[in-house]
């Protein structure tokens, strides 16, 4: 509630506001309404008359619900966000060298991006050799994982595995840990992008298991991790794919929250208690260059999730209410034209994420619209974070934009917009059904097209693309070289030899047990995936077994 104002003060304010409106109209004329990417009209000025919230109920203090100002009491001033740069290239040895170099330079949180062949559920000898290792590390066996993580202390390093269902990479890592004598309870990290629905609707980087099977494996995996690897975050709900595919910031937040509700309900249906699984839910978002809109998106999302977990799921543990998220600056905003301009874009995107209160950040390299990032580009991306933190002092004050009339008003409006989209999904029967029916895909497609039309019409400026173009030489656009064919040939040859030499009986038994689990809902499929990894099965073999048992999943595509 606003404090009642004295009548005299109010009318004086009104007179001043009217005066400003007249002055503004004289200069600006009747200017066209301005809308942000989510379609919210943005006014030229915000004043106390534009925000009617209640501080305690709607904002509160950092670390206190509804967490609008941040999920931890000290936020970035107490503990900075994790710099989690995505890494993955070439062979396991290439990856390991890059990783150890990053660790030597202070990285404590690592990530592993597998080759697209791994994302697709295949081994290296099942795909076009030209594509191996061009976008991620080629890891198919526990031995490969051992090579990837050589010299890395698994008990002290938070590892994000970009792991398509059935989460073979985690299984290979657990096998490595067991071999080294590392207790699984000491392992921390995230099954990054474990949100299968986002893969089905958006980036299709998912191994092709039909929806019902994918649904079951995810819950099996959450259940297993909560029991056996308690510091692991098995659930990473992803808005990033959908926003990159074209969803507006508000839509992306809404779909993500609707997905999180779906997964929480699926866990509950399995008999799990909300306070057992919700503390291990994490979120992953895209950060576009639309600065204030992104900040408001994150603040609104945090507030909505705090209410959902408490009111809808009855969670009592504050850890269940906290909306922990990783942000990645938006690659779609980057341009091939005048690529160094991307450094400026990434800086603004990173600021939006930091002011939005993220826990972990990946800044894109300026050259991502040209090829997979070069080392030179990746270094600038990391230093962009260092500059924002240590030179610009963005972390000195918690939620520094809180209380801005504009930010608070926009946070409220984004919240309403997000809740509106969530209501549409709910009316369709929840996120799983909405995806099955193609509703979500249709909305994303329409928004992608709408945004492209704004660029084509010039309504949305993209520097170097539809405005401020210059002639450029090719030398300004250096691309990352693809892996040396000879190195990859050696890797493939060693893999084939490995398959010949291992205990075939153990592999057959493990695959049979995996197939049996797939056919028996009382068993945990992921537990058998871990066994198979320990028995020497390859990623492709595990995926092929499940593809056969649970059915092939065509992407659901709407044009």
């Amino acid at each position, binding site marked *: 509630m606003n404090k009642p104002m004295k009548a005299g003060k109010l009318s004086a304010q009104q007179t001043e506001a009217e005066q400003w409106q007249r002055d503004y109209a004289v200069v600006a004329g009747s200017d066209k309404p301005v809308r942000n990417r989510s379609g919210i009209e943005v006014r030229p000025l915000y004043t106390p008359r534009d925000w009617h919230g209640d501080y305690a109920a709607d904002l509160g203090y950092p670390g206190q619900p509804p967490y609008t100002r941040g999920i931890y009491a000290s936020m970035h001033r107490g503990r900075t966000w994790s710099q989690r740069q995505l890494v993955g290239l070439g062979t396991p040895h290439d990856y390991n060298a890059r990783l150890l170099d990053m660790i030597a330079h202070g990285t404590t949180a690592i990530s592993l991006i597998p080759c697209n062949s791994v*994302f697709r559920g295949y081994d290296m000898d099942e795909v076009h050799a*030209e*594509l191996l290792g*061009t976008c991620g590390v080629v890891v198919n066996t526990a031995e490969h994982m051992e090579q990837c993580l050589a010299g890395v202390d698994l008990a002290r390093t938070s590892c994000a595995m970009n792991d398509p269902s059935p989460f073979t990479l985690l299984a290979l890592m657990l096998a490595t840990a067991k071999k080294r004598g590392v207790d699984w309870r000491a392992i921390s990290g995230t099954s990054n992008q474990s949100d299968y629905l986002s893969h089905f609707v958006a980036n*299709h980087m998912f191994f092709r298991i039909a929806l019902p099977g994918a649904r079951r494996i995810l819950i099996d995996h959450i259940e297993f991790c909560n029991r056996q690897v308690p510091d692991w975050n098995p659930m990473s709900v992803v808005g990033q794919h959908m926003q*990159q*595919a074209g969803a507006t910031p508000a839509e992306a937040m809404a779909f993500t929250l609707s997905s999180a509700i779906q997964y929480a309900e699926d866990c509950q249906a399995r008999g799990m208690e909300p306070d057992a699984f919700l503390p291990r839910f994490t979120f992953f978002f895209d950060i576009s260059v639309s600065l204030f809109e992104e900040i408001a998106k994150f603040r609104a999302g945090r507030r909505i999730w705090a209410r959902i977990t408490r009111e809808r799921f009855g969670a009592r543990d504050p850890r269940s209410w906290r909306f922990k998220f990783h942000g990645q600056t938006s690659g779609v905003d980057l341009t091939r034209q005048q690529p160094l301009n991307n450094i400026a874009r990434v800086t603004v995107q990173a600021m939006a994420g930091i002011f939005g209160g993220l826990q972990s950040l990946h800044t894109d390299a300026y050259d991502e619209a040209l090829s*997979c990032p070069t080392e030179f580009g990746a270094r600038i991306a990391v230093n962009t974070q260092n500059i924002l933190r240590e030179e610009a002092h963005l972390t000195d004050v918690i939620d520094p934009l809180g209380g801005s009339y504009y930010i608070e008003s926009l946070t409220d409006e984004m919240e309403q917009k997000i809740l509106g989209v969530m209501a549409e999904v709910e009316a369709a029967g929840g996120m799983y059904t909405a995806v099955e029916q193609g509703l979500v895909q249709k909305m994303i497609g329409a928004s992608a097209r709408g945004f492209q039309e704004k660029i084509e019409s010039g309504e949305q400026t993209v520097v170097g693309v539809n405005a401020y173009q210059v002639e450029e030489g090719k030398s300004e656009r250096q691309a990352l070289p693809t892996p040396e064919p000879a190195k990859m040939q050696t890797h493939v040859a060693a893999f084939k030899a490995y398959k010949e030499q291992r205990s075939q009986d153990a592999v057959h038994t493990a695959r049979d047990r995996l197939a049996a689990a797939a056919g028996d809902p009382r068993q945990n499929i992921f537990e058998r995936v871990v066994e198979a990894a320990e028995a020497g099965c390859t990623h492709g073999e595990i995926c092929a077994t499940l593809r056969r048992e649970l059915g092939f999943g065509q*992407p659901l595509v709407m*044009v």
Partner: protein
Amino acid sequence: MTSPPPKVLVTKIGLDGHDRGSRVVASHLRDAGMEVVYTPPWQDIAAVVKLAMEEDVDVIGVSSLATDHLIVPKLMRALYAAGLKDIAVIVGGIVPDADEAMLLEAGVARVFHPGSALDEISAEISRLTRARRTVGV
């Protein structure tokens, strides 16, 4: 009699699934009056050749975000082997400059990079279609 509109196959081959580009382009071409055959990502080269033949398309548009353009030369060889040399192939997406030369060398008619205008893409498809049909007469 006016010639029927261009018939275009919009597809993605290889391993990557990012399909925003192919979806936006396909829906633009459809709205521009072209006949569009659209496939989801991850198509096999053999399947693309078969579809192009069965549908008798004028142009194949291959979208690539994450290095799948590296197997486009294989697609070109497969099209030639199937006697479909008259079908023009264009590639759109993230293609490094050095690889663009390699693709043109392999017979690709044109490479569109990020930031290309949709109208420019449809105009090129119309031009390639006219060229194909003129040769065919």
